[in-house]
């Protein structure tokens, strides 16, 4: 069975892995996530009409949420120490990015999916709603709460994102 599946995998695998990494925050998990999603897509490949991307992304998002629910989260290792970095520190830029990365990690799987699909994948909110399987209003609500959370996060407040821009 092929019907363009191999071509799709060859063309989209890397991009899917990057998206999965932003959701899972771990490359090993991301690759496993993508392989699982593509295996599920392979089973249904002949029934998929049109662009398979929304279908595959939906599997990735749902599978990630499923794994996230099963994962033990009693203690989450942090990449950065909780102390606020000095903005005048030469290493502040790296610390700022780490703080942002850490803050994104505090979002719920659904909020993270909305943020990643909209800002990384460039999907419209309507497309995001179709992928995550909820209404446009719900997506807007998730996105709004996610952005608020990112902005009010203590790490984010202390960082200097202007310096992140290059």
């Amino acid at each position, binding site marked *: *069975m092929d019907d363009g599946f*191999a071509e799709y*995998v*060859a063309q989209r*695998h*890397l991009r899917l*892995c*990057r*998206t999965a*990494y*932003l959701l899972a925050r771990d*490359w090993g998990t*991301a*690759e496993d996530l*993508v*392989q*699982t999603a*593509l*295996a*599920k*897509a*392979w*089973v249904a490949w002949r029934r998929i009409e049109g662009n398979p991307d929304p279908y595959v992304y939906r599997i990735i998002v749902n599978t990630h949420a499923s794994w996230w629910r099963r994962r033990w989260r009693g203690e989450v290792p942090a990449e950065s120490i909780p102390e606020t970095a000095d903005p005048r520190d030469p290493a502040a830029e790296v610390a700022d*990015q780490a703080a*942002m*990365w850490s803050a994104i990690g505090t979002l719920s799987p659904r909020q993270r999916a909305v*943020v*990643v699909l909209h*800002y*990384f994948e460039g999907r419209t909110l309507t497309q995001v709603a179709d992928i995550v399987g909820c209404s446009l209003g719900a997506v807007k609500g998730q996105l709004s709460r996610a*952005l608020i959370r*990112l*902005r009010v996060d203590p790490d*984010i*407040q202390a*960082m*200097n*994102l*202007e310096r*992140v*821009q*290059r």
Partner: protein
Amino acid sequence: MRHTESDLRQFLTEFGQDPAGGEPSAHLDAIVRRGRRIRRTRRALTAGAAMAVAVTAAGLVNGLPAGPPRADKTSVAQRPADSAQVDPGPKLPASFPVVLGAEKFDLPLAYSQRFATMGVGRTVIFTPTSFSTGYKVVCDDPQAWVVIEGRGKGGEPSGTAGRCKTPVGGHHDQLSAPTDWLKHPQSLQIWVFPADASIFEAAKAVKDCKPTLKSKGCDENTVSSALRLPEVRERLSAEVGERPGNWAVGVYDRPAGAE
């Protein structure tokens, strides 16, 4: 605000790279193998679920709730299980008393089948274990009409009909059972009609409700006899249609090798 949406967009683009610099490679073979495994698992689950549904829907366990089998469909009877009753449908007697001259004995319930609708014909299939096979129909409404059709010694149609309270049933023995009785599964065709079905009108329309030896005019004995006619049953089925109504059939038999 400390940052903008474009900041977030750029940040995600930069972080969505493998820090080690190596790009993950696609393993198509592994993906397809995994897909095949998923498909096998799903098929196994589906088959298991279908089997569970079939066992439940068959509703052949005496006393257990049964999903209504579809009209005019053949149902395979099953041996009753030793499980608690949870459905208040009509209860089948545990045994079938037989009197053959001076010989008296009881046949235990061997198979049963429950139905939740009436007005349509049903075919019940069972495998006899002896020539002494009895069958009986019980209904929630004792005034309902029952018709049972089977085969006689030479394969000719043989059966009975009447109000469900009678009760309606029959019994084979070595002399009356078809010669191939034990060679393969046998069947009974059963119709149960509501008490208010236009039995008399249907009988008159088809047979003019002629009196029988047992009857005086067009009485219930006459229409019971008329119900044995396929034309009468077809007319009634078309008129009544399928409607709710619990009834059950029990097949009573000696254990294999007991004769």
